[in-house]
Protein backbone atom coordinates (compact mmCIF):
# COMPACT_ATOMS: atom_id res chain seq x y z
CA UNK A 1 0.00 0.00 0.00
CA UNK A 2 1.41 3.39 -0.98
CA UNK A 3 1.64 6.05 1.76
CA UNK A 4 -1.20 8.14 0.32
CA UNK A 5 -3.53 5.11 0.50
CA UNK A 6 -2.58 4.68 4.13
CA UNK A 7 -3.36 8.32 4.88
CA UNK A 8 -6.71 7.97 3.14
CA UNK A 9 -7.68 5.71 6.06
CA UNK A 10 -7.46 8.70 8.41
CA UNK A 11 -11.26 9.04 9.00
CA UNK A 12 -11.59 5.56 10.47
CA UNK A 13 -8.29 5.88 12.38
CA UNK A 14 -9.30 9.16 14.03
CA UNK A 15 -12.86 8.05 14.69
CA UNK A 16 -11.39 5.06 16.51
CA UNK A 17 -9.37 7.25 18.87
CA UNK A 18 -11.82 9.01 21.18
CA UNK A 19 -9.01 10.35 23.34
CA UNK A 20 -7.33 12.11 20.42
CA UNK A 21 -10.65 13.66 19.36
CA UNK A 22 -11.14 14.82 22.96
CA UNK A 23 -7.69 16.43 23.01
CA UNK A 24 -8.51 18.27 19.77
CA UNK A 25 -11.86 19.53 20.98
CA UNK A 26 -10.89 23.23 20.78
CA UNK A 27 -9.78 22.91 17.17
CA UNK A 28 -11.63 24.04 14.03
CA UNK A 29 -9.35 24.40 11.02
CA UNK A 30 -8.85 23.73 7.33
CA UNK A 31 -5.39 22.37 6.54
CA UNK A 32 -3.55 20.58 3.78
CA UNK A 33 -1.35 17.53 4.21
CA UNK A 34 0.75 16.31 1.32
CA UNK A 35 1.76 12.68 1.20
CA UNK A 36 4.42 12.64 -1.47
CA UNK A 37 2.78 14.23 -4.51
CA UNK A 38 -0.79 13.69 -3.27
CA UNK A 39 -2.53 16.52 -1.42
CA UNK A 40 -5.22 15.88 1.19
CA UNK A 41 -7.52 18.62 2.48
CA UNK A 42 -8.68 18.17 6.05
CA UNK A 43 -11.64 19.95 7.62
CA UNK A 44 -11.37 19.50 11.35
CA UNK A 45 -14.28 20.43 13.61
CA UNK A 46 -13.90 20.09 17.37
CA UNK A 47 -11.10 17.62 16.84
CA UNK A 48 -13.09 15.37 14.51
CA UNK A 49 -12.71 15.04 10.75
CA UNK A 50 -15.68 16.71 9.12
CA UNK A 51 -14.16 16.07 5.69
CA UNK A 52 -11.09 14.56 4.09
CA UNK A 53 -10.69 15.32 0.40
CA UNK A 54 -7.99 13.58 -1.59
CA UNK A 55 -6.41 15.18 -4.64
CA UNK A 56 -6.08 18.74 -5.98
CA UNK A 57 -8.92 21.20 -5.23
CA UNK A 58 -8.97 24.46 -7.18
CA UNK A 59 -8.65 27.59 -5.02
CA UNK A 60 -9.08 25.64 -1.79
CA UNK A 61 -8.28 27.89 1.15
CA UNK A 62 -6.29 26.36 4.02
CA UNK A 63 -4.53 27.68 7.12
CA UNK A 64 -1.37 25.68 6.76
CA UNK A 65 0.27 22.84 4.86
CA UNK A 66 2.43 20.00 6.12
CA UNK A 67 4.18 18.16 3.34
CA UNK A 68 6.49 15.19 3.41
CA UNK A 69 8.07 12.83 0.93
CA UNK A 70 6.70 9.32 0.43
CA UNK A 71 9.82 7.98 2.11
CA UNK A 72 9.36 10.29 5.09
CA UNK A 73 5.81 9.13 5.76
CA UNK A 74 6.59 5.48 5.07
CA UNK A 75 9.42 5.47 7.60
CA UNK A 76 7.52 7.70 10.05
CA UNK A 77 4.64 5.23 10.11
CA UNK A 78 6.65 2.15 11.00
CA UNK A 79 5.41 0.75 14.28
CA UNK A 80 8.86 1.29 15.77
CA UNK A 81 10.32 4.07 13.60
CA UNK A 82 14.06 4.46 13.27
CA UNK A 83 15.93 7.37 14.88
CA UNK A 84 15.58 10.52 12.82
CA UNK A 85 12.27 9.42 11.25
CA UNK A 86 10.20 9.11 14.44
CA UNK A 87 8.89 12.67 14.88
CA UNK A 88 7.47 15.38 12.65
CA UNK A 89 10.31 17.74 13.59
CA UNK A 90 12.90 15.03 13.02
CA UNK A 91 11.53 14.90 9.48
CA UNK A 92 11.62 18.68 9.00
CA UNK A 93 15.14 18.90 10.45
CA UNK A 94 16.42 16.36 7.93
CA UNK A 95 14.58 18.12 5.08
CA UNK A 96 12.12 15.30 4.42
CA UNK A 97 9.08 17.36 5.47
CA UNK A 98 8.09 21.02 5.76
CA UNK A 99 5.41 23.27 7.25
CA UNK A 100 4.04 26.39 5.59
CA UNK A 101 1.28 28.93 6.07
CA UNK A 102 -0.28 30.20 9.28
CA UNK A 103 1.29 27.83 11.76
CA UNK A 104 -0.60 29.18 14.76
CA UNK A 105 -3.38 26.57 14.81
CA UNK A 106 -0.71 23.89 14.30
CA UNK A 107 1.41 25.11 17.23
CA UNK A 108 -1.65 25.72 19.43
CA UNK A 109 -2.58 22.06 18.96
CA UNK A 110 0.82 20.60 18.27
CA UNK A 111 0.57 17.32 20.15
CA UNK A 112 -2.83 16.69 18.57
CA UNK A 113 -1.40 17.17 15.06
CA UNK A 114 1.70 15.09 15.76
CA UNK A 115 -0.50 12.26 16.98
CA UNK A 116 -2.97 12.73 14.13
CA UNK A 117 -0.26 12.53 11.50
CA UNK A 118 1.21 9.43 13.16
CA UNK A 119 -2.11 7.53 13.17
CA UNK A 120 -1.31 5.39 10.09
CA UNK A 121 1.35 3.75 12.28
CA UNK A 122 -1.54 1.65 13.58
CA UNK A 123 -2.29 0.13 10.20
CA UNK A 124 -0.86 -3.35 9.70
CA UNK A 125 -0.14 -2.38 6.07
CA UNK A 126 2.46 0.21 7.10
CA UNK A 127 4.65 -2.27 8.95
Amino acid at each position, binding site marked *: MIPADCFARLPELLAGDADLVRRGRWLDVECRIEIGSEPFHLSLRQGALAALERGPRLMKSTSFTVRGTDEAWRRHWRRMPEPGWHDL*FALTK*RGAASMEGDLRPLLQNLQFFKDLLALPRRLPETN
Partner: protein
Amino acid sequence: MAPVLDPMIGRYVRLDIDGTPHRIYFEEAGQGIPLVCLHTAGADNRQFRHLLADPEITSRYRVLAFDLPWHGKSTPPDGWEKTEYRLTTASYTAAIRAFCQAMELEKPVVMGCSIGGRIVLNLAIAHAAEFRALVALEAADFQQPWYDTSWLHRPDVHGGEVCAALISGLIAPQSPPVSRHETLWMYMQGGPGIFKGDLYFYRVDGDLREKVKTIDTGICPLYLLTGEYDFSCTAEDTLRTAAQIPGAQVQVMKELGHFPMSENPAKFSEYILPVLEKIATGSGR
Protein backbone atom coordinates in the same frame (compact mmCIF):
# COMPACT_ATOMS: atom_id res chain seq x y z
CA MET B 1 0.76 0.50 57.92
CA ALA B 2 4.01 2.48 57.72
CA PRO B 3 4.12 5.30 55.16
CA VAL B 4 5.77 4.44 51.85
CA LEU B 5 8.44 7.13 51.45
CA ASP B 6 10.81 7.88 48.61
CA PRO B 7 14.37 8.13 49.95
CA MET B 8 15.28 11.64 48.74
CA ILE B 9 14.91 14.68 50.97
CA GLY B 10 14.17 18.15 49.60
CA ARG B 11 15.47 21.37 51.15
CA TYR B 12 16.23 24.99 50.27
CA VAL B 13 19.69 26.53 50.43
CA ARG B 14 20.38 30.27 50.51
CA LEU B 15 23.24 31.43 48.34
CA ASP B 16 24.45 34.34 46.22
CA ILE B 17 24.97 33.99 42.48
CA ASP B 18 26.97 36.87 41.05
CA GLY B 19 25.99 38.97 44.06
CA THR B 20 22.25 38.25 43.80
CA PRO B 21 20.63 36.38 46.70
CA HIS B 22 18.84 33.17 45.73
CA ARG B 23 16.77 30.52 47.45
CA ILE B 24 17.58 27.27 45.66
CA TYR B 25 15.61 24.06 46.01
CA PHE B 26 17.45 20.77 45.87
CA GLU B 27 16.86 17.13 46.66
CA GLU B 28 19.47 14.72 47.87
CA ALA B 29 19.94 11.10 48.81
CA GLY B 30 22.83 8.80 49.59
CA GLN B 31 26.30 9.10 51.01
CA GLY B 32 29.76 9.24 49.55
CA ILE B 33 31.09 11.00 46.46
CA PRO B 34 29.02 14.12 45.72
CA LEU B 35 27.17 13.78 42.42
CA VAL B 36 25.46 16.99 41.30
CA CYS B 37 22.76 16.54 38.65
CA LEU B 38 21.68 19.27 36.22
CA HIS B 39 18.24 19.12 34.61
CA THR B 40 17.37 20.00 31.01
CA ALA B 41 16.11 23.35 29.74
CA GLY B 42 12.67 24.35 30.97
CA ALA B 43 12.47 21.45 33.42
CA ASP B 44 13.49 20.76 37.02
CA ASN B 45 15.24 18.31 39.30
CA ARG B 46 12.39 15.80 39.28
CA GLN B 47 13.98 14.39 36.13
CA PHE B 48 16.52 12.73 38.43
CA ARG B 49 14.11 11.17 40.91
CA HIS B 50 14.94 7.66 39.79
CA LEU B 51 18.67 8.19 40.25
CA LEU B 52 17.98 9.63 43.69
CA ALA B 53 16.10 6.46 44.56
CA ASP B 54 18.56 3.93 43.15
CA PRO B 55 20.42 2.19 46.01
CA GLU B 56 23.12 1.01 43.59
CA ILE B 57 24.01 4.69 43.16
CA THR B 58 23.18 6.15 46.57
CA SER B 59 25.19 3.46 48.37
CA ARG B 60 28.35 5.29 47.35
CA TYR B 61 27.26 8.60 45.91
CA ARG B 62 25.65 11.55 47.64
CA VAL B 63 23.31 12.54 44.82
CA LEU B 64 22.18 16.17 44.76
CA ALA B 65 19.82 17.58 42.15
CA PHE B 66 18.97 21.27 42.32
CA ASP B 67 16.47 23.40 40.46
CA LEU B 68 18.14 26.22 38.54
CA PRO B 69 16.93 29.69 39.54
CA TRP B 70 13.50 30.33 37.92
CA HIS B 71 12.90 26.57 37.63
CA GLY B 72 10.93 24.08 39.70
CA LYS B 73 10.73 25.19 43.32
CA SER B 74 13.70 27.56 43.25
CA THR B 75 12.42 31.07 43.84
CA PRO B 76 13.12 33.58 41.07
CA PRO B 77 15.26 36.48 42.32
CA ASP B 78 13.53 39.54 43.79
CA GLY B 79 12.37 41.84 41.00
CA TRP B 80 12.01 38.98 38.50
CA GLU B 81 8.79 40.52 37.21
CA LYS B 82 10.75 43.40 35.71
CA THR B 83 13.20 41.30 33.71
CA GLU B 84 13.20 38.83 30.85
CA TYR B 85 14.91 35.60 31.87
CA ARG B 86 17.95 34.62 29.86
CA LEU B 87 20.45 31.94 30.78
CA THR B 88 24.04 32.54 29.71
CA THR B 89 27.23 30.51 29.86
CA ALA B 90 28.47 32.82 32.63
CA SER B 91 25.28 32.79 34.73
CA TYR B 92 24.84 29.02 34.40
CA THR B 93 28.45 28.31 35.33
CA ALA B 94 28.17 30.71 38.28
CA ALA B 95 25.00 29.00 39.53
CA ILE B 96 26.61 25.55 39.53
CA ARG B 97 29.77 26.72 41.25
CA ALA B 98 27.77 28.69 43.82
CA PHE B 99 25.69 25.63 44.65
CA CYS B 100 28.75 23.39 45.02
CA GLN B 101 30.44 26.00 47.19
CA ALA B 102 27.40 26.70 49.36
CA MET B 103 26.93 22.98 49.95
CA GLU B 104 30.65 22.62 50.73
CA LEU B 105 31.04 19.82 48.19
CA GLU B 106 34.59 18.64 47.76
CA LYS B 107 35.47 17.80 44.16
CA PRO B 108 31.99 16.69 43.14
CA VAL B 109 31.07 14.79 40.01
CA VAL B 110 28.72 16.86 37.86
CA MET B 111 26.31 15.20 35.46
CA GLY B 112 24.09 17.36 33.28
CA CYS B 113 21.66 16.70 30.48
CA SER B 114 21.01 18.80 27.35
CA ILE B 115 21.78 22.39 28.44
CA GLY B 116 23.19 20.68 31.52
CA GLY B 117 25.40 18.60 29.25
CA ARG B 118 26.54 21.65 27.32
CA ILE B 119 27.48 23.49 30.51
CA VAL B 120 29.35 20.41 31.73
CA LEU B 121 31.55 20.87 28.67
CA ASN B 122 32.16 24.46 29.76
CA LEU B 123 33.07 23.24 33.25
CA ALA B 124 35.59 20.94 31.61
CA ILE B 125 36.96 23.86 29.59
CA ALA B 126 37.17 26.43 32.37
CA HIS B 127 37.06 24.75 35.79
CA ALA B 128 38.15 21.13 35.37
CA ALA B 129 40.32 21.06 38.48
CA GLU B 130 37.27 21.65 40.70
CA PHE B 131 35.63 18.36 39.74
CA ARG B 132 36.32 14.67 40.19
CA ALA B 133 34.65 13.75 36.91
CA LEU B 134 32.16 15.26 34.46
CA VAL B 135 29.31 13.47 32.71
CA ALA B 136 27.64 15.17 29.76
CA LEU B 137 24.34 13.66 28.63
CA GLU B 138 22.91 14.67 25.26
CA ALA B 139 25.74 17.16 24.82
CA ALA B 140 27.71 18.65 21.96
CA ASP B 141 29.77 21.73 21.29
CA PHE B 142 27.01 22.99 19.00
CA GLN B 143 23.89 21.68 17.34
CA GLN B 144 21.61 22.88 14.56
CA PRO B 145 18.35 24.54 15.70
CA TRP B 146 15.20 22.72 14.61
CA TYR B 147 12.41 25.18 15.46
CA ASP B 148 11.72 28.86 16.06
CA THR B 149 11.81 29.53 19.82
CA SER B 150 9.49 32.55 19.47
CA TRP B 151 6.61 30.05 19.60
CA LEU B 152 7.52 29.15 23.17
CA HIS B 153 6.32 32.37 24.81
CA ARG B 154 3.41 34.27 23.31
CA PRO B 155 -0.11 34.93 24.53
CA ASP B 156 -1.95 32.99 21.83
CA VAL B 157 -0.14 29.67 22.38
CA HIS B 158 -0.13 27.80 25.70
CA GLY B 159 3.53 27.80 26.69
CA GLY B 160 3.50 24.61 28.72
CA GLU B 161 1.62 22.63 26.12
CA VAL B 162 3.69 23.78 23.16
CA CYS B 163 6.97 23.18 25.02
CA ALA B 164 5.90 19.66 25.90
CA ALA B 165 4.60 18.93 22.41
CA LEU B 166 7.81 20.13 20.79
CA ILE B 167 10.12 18.08 22.98
CA SER B 168 7.86 15.01 22.94
CA GLY B 169 9.55 13.88 19.74
CA LEU B 170 12.91 13.77 21.47
CA ILE B 171 11.73 10.87 23.62
CA ALA B 172 12.50 7.44 22.19
CA PRO B 173 9.45 5.49 21.01
CA GLN B 174 10.53 2.56 23.20
CA SER B 175 10.20 4.62 26.39
CA PRO B 176 7.41 3.47 28.73
CA PRO B 177 4.29 5.64 28.26
CA VAL B 178 4.13 6.49 31.97
CA SER B 179 7.70 7.80 31.96
CA ARG B 180 7.12 9.64 28.68
CA HIS B 181 4.13 11.48 30.08
CA GLU B 182 5.80 12.24 33.40
CA THR B 183 8.65 13.83 31.43
CA LEU B 184 6.15 15.87 29.41
CA TRP B 185 4.25 16.93 32.54
CA MET B 186 7.38 18.63 33.89
CA TYR B 187 7.65 20.63 30.67
CA MET B 188 4.02 21.67 30.95
CA GLN B 189 4.78 23.19 34.35
CA GLY B 190 7.64 25.53 33.47
CA GLY B 191 7.29 29.27 34.12
CA PRO B 192 6.40 31.54 31.18
CA GLY B 193 9.39 32.14 28.91
CA ILE B 194 11.77 30.02 30.96
CA PHE B 195 12.36 27.29 28.39
CA LYS B 196 12.92 30.00 25.79
CA GLY B 197 15.32 31.81 28.13
CA ASP B 198 17.31 28.62 28.68
CA LEU B 199 17.59 28.12 24.95
CA TYR B 200 19.28 31.49 24.65
CA PHE B 201 22.25 29.80 26.30
CA TYR B 202 21.86 26.72 24.14
CA ARG B 203 21.56 28.45 20.79
CA VAL B 204 23.12 31.88 21.02
CA ASP B 205 25.52 32.23 23.91
CA GLY B 206 26.84 28.72 24.49
CA ASP B 207 28.58 27.88 21.24
CA LEU B 208 31.63 25.88 22.34
CA ARG B 209 33.04 25.02 18.93
CA GLU B 210 36.82 25.28 18.98
CA LYS B 211 36.81 25.72 22.78
CA VAL B 212 36.23 22.00 23.46
CA LYS B 213 39.62 21.26 21.92
CA THR B 214 41.23 22.77 25.01
CA ILE B 215 39.65 20.22 27.39
CA ASP B 216 42.26 18.23 29.30
CA THR B 217 40.77 14.94 30.46
CA GLY B 218 44.00 14.31 32.36
CA ILE B 219 42.80 16.92 34.85
CA CYS B 220 39.21 15.69 34.97
CA PRO B 221 37.74 12.63 33.19
CA LEU B 222 34.90 13.41 30.80
CA TYR B 223 32.11 11.06 29.75
CA LEU B 224 29.62 11.79 26.96
CA LEU B 225 26.48 9.72 26.50
CA THR B 226 23.75 10.47 23.95
CA GLY B 227 20.53 8.67 23.09
CA GLU B 228 20.15 7.49 19.51
CA TYR B 229 16.65 9.02 19.21
CA ASP B 230 17.82 12.51 20.18
CA PHE B 231 17.52 14.53 16.98
CA SER B 232 18.22 17.80 18.81
CA CYS B 233 21.67 16.75 19.98
CA THR B 234 22.29 13.88 17.60
CA ALA B 235 24.68 11.01 18.16
CA GLU B 236 26.74 12.50 15.33
CA ASP B 237 26.91 15.85 17.17
CA THR B 238 28.23 14.13 20.30
CA LEU B 239 30.67 11.90 18.41
CA ARG B 240 32.01 14.94 16.53
CA THR B 241 32.51 16.73 19.84
CA ALA B 242 34.18 13.76 21.53
CA ALA B 243 36.55 13.30 18.59
CA GLN B 244 38.03 16.71 19.38
CA ILE B 245 38.75 15.85 23.02
CA PRO B 246 41.59 13.37 23.64
CA GLY B 247 40.62 10.92 26.37
CA ALA B 248 36.89 11.69 26.30
CA GLN B 249 34.80 8.54 26.68
CA VAL B 250 31.72 8.49 24.51
CA GLN B 251 28.77 6.19 24.12
CA VAL B 252 25.60 6.22 22.02
CA MET B 253 22.68 4.85 24.03
CA LYS B 254 20.26 2.57 22.18
CA GLU B 255 16.50 3.04 22.57
CA LEU B 256 16.93 6.33 24.43
CA GLY B 257 16.28 9.93 23.51
CA HIS B 258 17.02 13.37 24.93
CA PHE B 259 15.82 12.69 28.50
CA PRO B 260 17.39 9.32 29.38
CA MET B 261 17.12 9.62 33.17
CA SER B 262 13.39 10.36 33.14
CA GLU B 263 12.07 8.87 29.89
CA ASN B 264 13.37 5.37 30.55
CA PRO B 265 15.12 5.08 33.93
CA ALA B 266 15.70 1.32 33.69
CA LYS B 267 17.33 1.54 30.28
CA PHE B 268 19.45 4.51 31.38
CA SER B 269 20.73 2.52 34.36
CA GLU B 270 22.34 0.05 31.98
CA TYR B 271 24.50 2.88 30.65
CA ILE B 272 25.11 5.12 33.63
CA LEU B 273 25.92 2.51 36.30
CA PRO B 274 29.15 1.38 34.57
CA VAL B 275 30.19 5.02 34.19
CA LEU B 276 29.59 5.74 37.87
CA GLU B 277 31.46 2.53 38.73
CA LYS B 278 34.47 3.72 36.74
CA ILE B 279 34.39 7.12 38.40
CA ALA B 280 34.05 5.67 41.91
CA THR B 281 36.92 3.23 41.46
CA GLY B 282 39.09 5.53 39.37
CA SER B 283 39.30 2.82 36.71
CA GLY B 284 38.27 5.18 33.93
CA ARG B 285 41.53 7.12 33.98
